[in-house]
């Protein structure tokens, strides 16, 4: 834990006399923005670059926001699990619980003009980019109120106005697409960057190396983020990659290995990466993370991993528990206050689900909308074209 490495300006907090501690129990939950410096769990491991410092600047308000955001994501994914088992969510459902620190830490270091693109494990990434619980649950259940109006499903969430470009079902395709977003940012002379997220399974895709080569040649402001949860579906990293040091796989492209369960380390790495790519072209971040669920809802996740491994990570490295300990250890809130936040979140999630269930299924005419932006009056057909046809506007 980070407490033993506190900088001297804050170390006296732990040694405060009981009386002062007692009075702090009565004060409201801290919303202070006074800087707090906390050390990451482990140092960063660099590849062809100078790593950023382990000391991360944060503040009580930010830490509490981290707690709330990650707890919301956790609760949301667990609720999605239940909805799937109740057959309200169909098809594919890939859950992110355990990996929350990656998208939350990333958001803390960037703005909405920076772009994020990811694969199909996108519910929490979408939430982090400003999506709402209602839009998420509605989309998962295929309703009109969904972020893709029920036409996309779990793997196809988008929020273009806040720089979230999906939501992609084909493993690895999102990496060249992300490099294309970065190309556009450079073409437009924005001072913004793109984060293209992919898993350890996708890290072996040829198109990734093709796009990385072009990005390095053209100095594109692209950050490749390998969310290494150590399993590509049921295949462990050592069975899929000759070199599972994904942060080094860029060869001539610098890289950094990050503890992806430590939200502050993620924040620091992303901040470092953004500054780096705006000056020097691409970089690879490898987030050492873990998913508690299986690959998807049809995978129990325990045929290729031991239950001990899963519970071990939950006990030792859970990202929410880490922040809880930091918050309690620095007296930024009490245990009860944090539990109250979690109760509030549970209620919010339940309400969003109830409201989402009220959203209707799409109108049948929606079958034929959005095929084109401009259809020029061409016709499209249903299964029996003499029965069902439509003119595309």
């Amino acid at each position, binding site marked *: 834990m980070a407490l033993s490495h506190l900088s001297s300006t804050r170390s006296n907090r732990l040694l405060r006399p009981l009386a002062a501690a007692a009075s702090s129990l009565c004060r409201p939950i801290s919303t202070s923005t006074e800087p707090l410096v906390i050390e990451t769990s482990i140092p960063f491991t660099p590849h062809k670059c100078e790593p950023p410092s382990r000391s991360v600047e944060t503040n009580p308000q930010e830490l509490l926001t981290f707690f709330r955001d990650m707890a919301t994501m956790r609760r949301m994914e667990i609720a999605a699990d239940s909805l799937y088992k109740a057959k309200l969510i169909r098809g594919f459902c890939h859950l992110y619980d355990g990996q929350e620190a990656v998208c939350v830490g990333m958001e803390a270091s960037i703005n909405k003009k920076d*772009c994020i*693109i990811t694969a199909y494990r996108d519910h929490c990434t979408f939430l982090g980019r400003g999506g709402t619980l209602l839009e998420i649950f509605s989309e998962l259940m295929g309703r009109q109120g969904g972020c*893709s*109006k*029920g*036409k*996309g499903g779990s793997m*196809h969430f*988008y*929020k*273009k106005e806040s720089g979230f*470009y*999906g*939501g*992609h*079902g*084909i493993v690895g*395709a999102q*990496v*060249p*697409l*992300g*490099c*294309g*977003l*970065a*190309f*556009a*940012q450079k*073409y*437009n002379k924005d001072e913004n960057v793109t984060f293209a997220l992919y898993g350890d399974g996708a890290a072996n895709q*040829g*198109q990734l*190396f*093709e*796009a990385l*080569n*072009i*990005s390095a*040649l*053209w100095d594109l402001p692209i950050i490749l983020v390998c969310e290494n949860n150590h399993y590509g579906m049921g295949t462990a990293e050592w069975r899929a990659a000759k070199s599972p040091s994904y942060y080094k796989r860029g060869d001539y492209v610098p890289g950094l290995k990050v503890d992806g369960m430590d939200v502050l380390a993620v924040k620091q790495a992303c901040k470092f990466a953004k500054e780096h790519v705006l000056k020097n072209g691409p970089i690879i971040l490898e987030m050492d993370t873990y998913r508690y669920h299986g690959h998807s809802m049809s995978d129990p996740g325990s045929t290729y991993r031991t239950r001990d491994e899963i519970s071990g990570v939950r006990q030792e490295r859970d990202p929410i528990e880490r922040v809880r300990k930091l918050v309690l250890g620095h007296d930024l809130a009490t245990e009860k206050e944090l539990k109250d936040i979690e109760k509030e979140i549970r209620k919010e999630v339940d309400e969003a689900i109830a409201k989402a269930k009220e959203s209707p299924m799409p109108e049948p005419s929606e079958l034929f*909308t*959005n*095929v*084109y*932006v*401009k*259809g*020029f*009056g*061409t*016709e*499209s057909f249903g299964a029996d*074209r*003499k029965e069902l046809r439509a003119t595309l506007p």
Partner: protein
Amino acid sequence: MWGIVGQRVFRHGSSAMSLQGTRPAILASRSFSSAAKEMTVRDALNSAIDEEMSADPKVFLMGEEVGEYQGAYKITKGLLEKYGPDRVLDTPITEAGFTGIGVGAAYHGLKPIIEFMTFNFSMQAIDHIINSAAKSNYMSAGQISVPIVFRGPNGAAAGVGAQHSQCYASWFASCPGLKVLAPYSSEDARGLMKAAIRDPDPVVFLENELLYGESFPVSAEVLDSSFSLPIGKAKIEREGKDVTITAFSKMVGYALKAAEILSKEGISAEVINLRSIRPLDRATINNSVRKTNRLVTVEEGFPQHGIGAEICASVVEDSFEYLDAAIERIAGADVPMPYAANLERLAVPQVEDIVRAAKRTCYRSSSLAATA
């Protein structure tokens, strides 16, 4: 038969016209107040891309050898010098990578023109064309539109063998969300390219290497920088009343030659230049067949599940009672493209194949005559 005498006379008079190569018969018979300007398909494409890049700074060009080499087929000649390396980008030989980058740039709002040196290489990138480009507007319920053009030579060239000769029209045209265009003349090339670049949806633009050097007359209207042709509309290249012949790209020229030959035998063929494979102009095709009652479809690509198959189905569904004969399909041979010149000739439709099929629809084929 009375027709033979008349045809002999007719043949003499029209021999000059039939030797005029690919110029459409209708245009050749018009008189212009001033000499019509001629333009090669290559120059038509180059000028169209140039004008659209000039008009819209979001348009950029990406592909192998498009810049310093001036284009593998010189279609993009001069564009690097004019627009600079930020807008004309030479890529490594990595189709999956650069096509994905192009689609991503289109997601963000730029208007890429991605060149495939030939569409045979598009197979390396087809996932991005179909799954990343064609389907995105639908999956995102309109949030992510993809204003991109994928262009390059398609179909058979001359002697380039099996891996470099396939026609991809039917593969791409089967996919909802894509638009697929195939120009024939320089007017088509200019008008359809401009329409494709301006279009907010992903467009697959199928050119033909052997047409690049062909010249066609172009009017002042076609040369104007605001010119464009509508997507989804076929053109009746030659009016007729006895049989409809549909074709696209190079085969339009062959169909027109076939129509000339047929006219001397008293068969008046209507030649339709599809221009747009998707959306397919079913109305023009069906209206024509309702007039002529006979149909021959012509394409260069493999026959099974091809463009002709779709046209045949459309006409059977919508104009069955109007057909006086079975629909005929002329297509490339159902084999990988051979190299030897004589085998290659057998693998690609020839004018005489189109003539023979048209005659069959008119119950005029020689084998039938022999049994009569």
